[in-house]
């Protein structure tokens, strides 16, 4: 049948006696070229226990990320104590979706504040004469983990750069939102009468990324705007887009938005133009 491995390659391809229940795959080493779950080996034709267990754990983390509620009170206390935070008030808001099952089935509810939150913001607005350039909406979205892990390191990088500019951004009190989706930022920005809103939201968790935070920016926010009016920066997390890179991109978009007085499809992110393709000139190894 198959040719024996030559001597020089024997050291690279371990031999697997067929008596073993698990047949390993010598091409498992190709995992250095991709995060795909290749070369898992097999028990009969099935996934070996070791890999089954690690898959189950990854799925469990992703599901927990979706269903674990945001600890907003703790987060608010923590944010209020940060030196970079321009306001000592952090507002706690809630969408129209009362709980997670409703949130998952009614995306329209997750885009609107509930009545209490609307009153709260209206009240707040009527007690102040501030002209806000920018409001931040910190939204649980589909992963509270993403917010809890990434919000402080990200904002502590970004906010000082905004407030120390020659033309400093006047930032509204931070808003922490439970059971929210991206578009709820427009509702908040509108009620605070802010020129711009930045939404920081827990993204839909992937199997290997349960903690990914997304950023959405709208100039002149008002309810009913579509995605075409937003700019997005995705995958902000320790193992993804770094806080300093994300902060750099955000600063770029905010500056452009303020200059052009717009956001969305007409505002292109040019910060990535220098990135080359990821091939590195490697040829397809399957072809001789």
């Amino acid at each position: 049948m198959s040719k024996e491995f030559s001597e020089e390659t024997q050291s690279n391809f371990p031999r697997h006696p067929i008596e073993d229940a698990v047949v390993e795959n010598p091409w498992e080493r190709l995992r250095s070229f991709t995060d795909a779950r290749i070369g898992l080996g097999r028990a009969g034709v099935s996934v070996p226990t070791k890999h089954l267990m690690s898959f189950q754990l990854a799925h469990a983390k992703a599901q927990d990320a979706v269903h674990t509620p945001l600890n907003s009170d703790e987060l608010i206390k923590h944010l209020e104590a940060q030196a970079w935070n321009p306001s000592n008030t952090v507002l706690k808001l809630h969408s129209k979706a009362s709980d997670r099952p409703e949130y998952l089935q009614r995306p329209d509810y997750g885009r609107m504040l509930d009545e209490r939150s609307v009153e709260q913001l209206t009240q707040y607005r009527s007690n102040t004469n501030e002209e806000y350039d920018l409001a931040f909406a910190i939204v649980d979205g589909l992963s509270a983990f993403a917010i809890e892990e990434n919000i402080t390191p990200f904002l502590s990088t970004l906010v000082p750069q905004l407030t120390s500019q020659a033309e400093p951004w006047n930032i509204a009190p931070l808003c922490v939102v439970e059971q929210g989706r991206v578009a709820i930022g427009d509702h908040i920005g509108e009620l605070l009468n802010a020129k711009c809103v930045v939404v920081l939201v827990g993204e839909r968790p992937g199997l290997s990324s349960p903690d990914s935070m997304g950023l959405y920016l709208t100039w002149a926010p008002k309810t009913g705007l579509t995605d075409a009016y937003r700019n997005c920066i995705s995958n902000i997390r320790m193992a993804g887009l770094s806080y300093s890179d994300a902060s750099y991109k955000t600063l770029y978009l905010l500056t452009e938005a303020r200059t052009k007085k717009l956001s969305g499809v007409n505002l292109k992110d040019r910060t990535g133009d220098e990135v080359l393709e990821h091939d590195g000139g490697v040829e397809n190894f399957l072809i001789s």
Partner: protein
Amino acid sequence: MSTPSFQFRHTVGEKTFGFRDLKELMAKATPARSGDRLAGVAADNAEERAIAQMTLADVPLKQFLEDLLIPYEDDEITRLIIDEHSKEAFSPISHLTVGGFRDWLLSDLASPAVLKQIRAGVTPEMAAAVSKIMRNQDLILVAKKCHVTTAFRNTIGLPGHLSTRLQPNHPTDDLTGIAASMLDGLLYANGDAVIGINPATDNVAQACRLIKMMGDVIDQYEIPTQSCVLTHVTNTIEAIEQGAPVDLVFQSIGGTQATNDSFGFNLNTLAEAHDAALSLNRGTVGNNVMYFETGQGSSLSANAHHNVDQQTCETRAYAVARKFNPLLVNTVVGFIGPEYLYDGKEIIRAGLEDHFCAKLLGVPMGCDVCYTNHADADQNDMDNLLTLLGVAGCTFIMGIPGSDDIMLNYQTTSFHDALYARRALGLKPAPEFNEWLKKVEIFQNNDHFTLNHQVPDAFHQSLNRLIGRH
């Protein structure tokens, strides 16, 4: 209280239920799912649903030719459905009601040959209607009798066979990463339906690069299969104009004109692409050159559903598919998320409905047996749906390393899952591909689907080139 006018009424004891029109009746008769609740068209409660099903069972099939859910003037898919309906094919079933149609489909009168004869007489709405009053086992049993065979470089859909799409996606389209997943899939005997990549960067240049890469592999190893880059149809037309070796043209399709407008194409675009791909004449055993994807919820998500329930919208997409004689159609059933299909139960039901309706209409339906992490579903639900679809004679499933799509961030069936289905249900790959698997010694033993314990010669050298030197 005002009295709305009801086209359909049903009285049970003291209580009368009314349904304004056929569209409302269809929606309320649909087994429960979150997308219809989101659209506000679902039955208010279980009793109303059961009554709607009872009422729908009494509707004559003929009525679906007169009483159009989306007006003829407003929608080119309605026009396609009506203009291409065959009275001759319809005549053997034209006297039936929806309920009578279910009985007939399950009866021995409906042999595979007869089911083939009536295809052109069945409209998507008739198929959707009867599916709504069928149990899961009915959907399986009848689908199994509907044989739909297509061909390009191999023959897909023969009874007793199950094919797989090898899906070697990579988040940056890295060629080495893609090749690694392709190798993994081929050595796990996957990839006879198509080797199909969802590109991370969606433009013509990238599509050409990936098409060429896959074409080279298929040529070098003489694999009787076909490749496809799942890019927008207009990109593929351009790629063909630029001389790219395009096997199959891909497009996501929906069941209303407005849905397809939102996808940026119409029937003319598909006709143009179909002609362009045929002109390349790259098939060896057949010339089915289109690959379509569908999925319940796409019309609602584009706000293009005309208050028609999501399963009926989905079935109307199969009229678009069958117009262009596709090699493969794939319902990506659990990808859209829990606002359309909430949990494992709803996903499984939808997968079986889509497969049944497509096969009844003569469409070569496969299924992306899948879920996202915010749906209430897991690997066990996927095992259930995979097994049920395997029994039902599903045309193909996806094959991906370890069920984890690192580009699209969802879970679908793995290379291993396909081998499970082969062993558990005795299902073979496409015959030409099966011969190749034996020839290159990927399969050691055809009857028991046993894989080679060693890396076969042909691939051993390639592997050596990459890691032998490290």
